[in-house]
């Protein structure tokens, strides 16, 4: 019933806000991992079980689109749900990400209240986690 969450954003402020929003969503969290870019995220994903990923798009070293592509190419990561949280508003990029299988796209600035609906929709209220 507890979930492992990975938050990927080069802004520590955004990572803190996402953490708080997850807390407000009512989902029981076993562990929260944080990464400043896609490369750090992949390192975490390769050594820890993660139930859901929240990722920005515009990040140094490896951006969110590259991260989603790498995850989709890895049989161990392809089914891990990804929620993109970004200031990006280009429709073709959003459509391409959805075609790649992201579970949701949240535009910045986001309302913490909106998190509950998205997180519960993906993980399910009272659903089983893997931790």
């Amino acid at each position, binding site marked *: 019933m507890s979930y492992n969450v990975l938050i990927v954003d080069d802004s520590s*402020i*955004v990572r803190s806000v996402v953490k708080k929003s997850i807390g407000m969503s009512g989902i029981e969290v076993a562990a929260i991992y944080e990464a400043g870019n896609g490369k750090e995220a992949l390192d975490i994903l390769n050594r820890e079980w993660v139930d859901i990923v929240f990722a920005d798009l*515009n990040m*140094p070293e490896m951006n969110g689109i590259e991260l989603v592509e790498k995850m989709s190419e890895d049989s161990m990561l392809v089914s891990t749900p990804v929620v993109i949280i*970004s200031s*990006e*508003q*280009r429709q073709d990029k959003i459509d391409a990400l959805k075609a790649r299988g992201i579970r949701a796209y949240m535009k910045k*600035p986001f309302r913490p209240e909106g998190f509950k609906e998205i997180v519960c929709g993906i993980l399910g209220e009272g659903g089983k986690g893997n931790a």
Partner: protein
Amino acid sequence: MPEKEHDIRILGRVVIEILEEAAFLFTEPMDENNASEVSSEVFVAKLGYFGPSKGEMVFSTPLNVASELAANLLGLEPDDPEVAGKGAEAVGEMLNIIGGALLKEWFGSEADFEMGIPVVERISGAKFSEEAARATVHLPLITEEGERIDAAVIK
């Protein structure tokens, strides 16, 4: 038809809305001719973009306003230890959010455009004023507390 990037009203509307929505900071435009000088050090964030045209977006606040932005974004009191040292990052993140909204306003969501990653530096008010003088569009704003914030586009 004038480029939308040159339209100070679009810049003003987007910046004011984002500051309110994301950071609960209420501002209004200052008359650039009567704007107070930028006397103190500021954090200035710059964000390059390219698409139907290219340029750089600029967003700047005094250091104390940057701390207030960080506190508001984090939902904490300004003197909370977690807020300390986060002012520059807050200014960068605000420009990141503003940038996404501005590009959509200027070019539409179907256009081919790219946005970079904000770069933030701390500079003197005098140096900022010199740089702002080169802006294609420059909008000084004032907060409810009388603090000056600046937004600009350089083409």
